[in-house]
């Protein structure tokens, strides 16, 4: 480990919408070292994808991005001209999307697109580009790679297309890969195969990996560290084993109580729920974003913004003034979380 690959500090995204100014990402802070997998989890709409797009500088035109620090290795990504960004993207950092068809061009062969991915950035011959494409297709478990290169995206199954996307992301040997729900559209055996592969390649190439998902099973199995987001903010972050063993934010604890776990939750028994709805992110909300749904909310929670504070060692940080009470079982006492 050691070398810092990605530094994100106080990242914000603002988007003007009909109802006013939307703040979908509000001060997100995390970092990724080489060889680490950082998982971002949280409810639909909490800002996971926009965080990824902000890092890659692929936000919609109307969106405005600001950050205290946004660095890839030792290079800032803030205020970098698009021409320069285009050189970094796909080269030193690459993104894998949920639906591979959104990033594969239906009009070109797989081979053509894989080769272009490296020819655009590196001074290599087409022959060497092809060699690397064949090699990487083999690495992602695609047999008869030479023939696959001549196929078009629509001729491949969803699982195969996602493998092609992973190979494409690896073409330039990036330091960082950002994968947004890379297996959500696939079924479980293929999901396991793809994740297994991703974890293996990540170790082998010693990359930093940011993986976005709302599947807590994936997080538990693949993450080094976890970033839990709620309503645009990071509410808790830390090493994966600590987050699952002793969640300190009421939202994280609620989330873990919602999922059935074979052997742990009893058949037919009620699962935990988080009553209420996510607040609107239009306009300012200068207090705890989870207050309206929190079973242990107190007046102070609504008095001022809650900072993300360090909790013990190992980089554990929590955004809750009652974190110590949560750790001591306050939610169970309130009779909510299972």
């Amino acid at each position, binding site marked *: 480990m050691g070398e810092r690959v990605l530094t994100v500090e106080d990242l914000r995204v603002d988007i003007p919408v009909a109802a006013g100014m939307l703040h979908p990402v509000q001060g997100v802070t995390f970092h990724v070292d080489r060889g680490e997998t950082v998982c971002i989890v949280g*409810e*639909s709409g909490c800002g996971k994808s926009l965080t990824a797009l902000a890092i890659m500088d692929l936000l919609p035109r109307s969106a405005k991005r600001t950050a205290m620090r946004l660095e890839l290795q030792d290079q800032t990504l803030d205020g970098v001209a698009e021409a320069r960004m285009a050189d970094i993207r796909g080269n030193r950092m690459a993104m894998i999307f949920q639906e591979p068809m959104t990033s594969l061009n239906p009009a070109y062969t797989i081979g053509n697109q894989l080769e272009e991915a490296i020819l655009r950035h590196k001074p290599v011959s087409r022959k060497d580009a092809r060699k690397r494409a064949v090699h990487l297709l083999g690495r992602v*478990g*695609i*047999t008869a790679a030479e023939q696959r290169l001549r196929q078009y995206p629509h001729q491949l*199954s*969803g*699982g*195969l297309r996602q493998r092609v996307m992973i190979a494409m992301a690896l073409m330039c040997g990036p330091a960082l890969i950002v994968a947004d729900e890379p297996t959500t559209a*696939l*079924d*479980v*055996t*293929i*999901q*396991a*195969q793809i*994740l*297994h592969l991703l*974890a293996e390649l990540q170790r082998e190439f010693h990359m930093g990996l940011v993986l976005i998902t*709302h*599947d*807590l*099973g*994936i*997080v*538990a*199995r*693949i*993450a080094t560290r976890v970033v839990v987001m709620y309503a645009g903010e990071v509410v808790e972050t830390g090493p*994966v*084993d600590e987050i*699952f*063993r002793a969640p300190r934010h009421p939202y994280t604890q*609620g*989330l*873990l109580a*919602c*999922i*059935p*776990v*074979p*052997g742990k*939750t009893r*058949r*037919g028994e*009620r*699962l*935990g*729920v*988080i009553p209420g*709805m996510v607040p609107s992110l239009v306009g300012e909300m200068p207090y705890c974003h989870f207050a309206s749904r929190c079973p242990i909310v107190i007046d102070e929670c609504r008095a001022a913004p809650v900072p993300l504070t360090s909790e013990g060692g190992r980089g554990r940080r929590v955004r809750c003034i009652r974190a110590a009470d949560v750790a001591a079982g306050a939610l169970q006492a309130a009779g909510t979380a299972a």
Partner: protein
Amino acid sequence: MSAAKTSAAMLEASDVTRTFMVSQGFMRGKRPLHAVNGISMTVREGEVVALVGESGCGKTTLARILLGLLPPTSGSIRVGGQPITGLARHEVAKLVQPVFQDPYSSLNPRKSIGSIVALPLKVQGGVEGRETRRRVEEMMELVGLARRLYDNYPNQLSGGQRQRVAIARALVNRPRIVICDEPTSALDVSVQSQILNLLQDLRRELGLTYLLISHNLAVVEHMADRVAVMYLGRIVEQADTDTLFRAPKHPYTEALLRSVLTPEPGLGIPDTHLGAAYPNPLNMPTGCRFHPRCPKRFAPCDSVAPKPLGDGGTFVECHLYDPQVAQAAA
């Protein structure tokens, strides 16, 4: 549910097949796609039977056949003890109703919540306006939707609320059986748990029978009494939930269970031990249709199709468990 073993059969499929003719492209003619290929199953009153299996293995096609929305190519269906061919469309709808996967696209965006939920009553006829409203409101309350949402439209609702609308619509004329096709897979885990709790409550309160289709094996384990595992158009294993999860027999069932990512840090991503040869329903493998991916295949698997071994309720379709085949191969 041991009681279920003796209770009446609510849904029965006997040797059902469904073939689609699909075009191969310009000037290439059509080829048969065997989406459902000889399925027999029984769902008894009060039971929750889950149907699991790879994407494209024919789960939704079977569900549509059981709902009377799609005629089988061959085989027969009985609903509530009667042959489906002898029942009118609205009579089938009174017995069995669907809840589909995507609460975003399965609701008509131009209809109010009230009229969406009321639709099955209107189709069925014979219920007057005021009575309709009363029954719709009663059902909305039962599934946890505020009455004030009666005149709202689907785009004003969250995903969880929309799925509640779909459930209310399915239940409004009090069917006996509900077929849930991926009822929570488009939803967040915090919404999923609400919907699963709701389905459990409704089952108890209304004495419902469920056929539950899901990719999420943790959900299946939580909800189902019995599980049927499908692969390329056939049920390859069926057993009660505890037996199936504790001692899976078919190598595909084993791979499925191995693929479940329980939220336990430190266990890593499992190796499925499966080959990467994705099944193509237009080009069915010979013999056992799972053999190209099977880590345990042996001599007869690529030439001889396995037969179901066991009784109607608990069986596996795999040569490994056929003493005659194993002996012949040895």
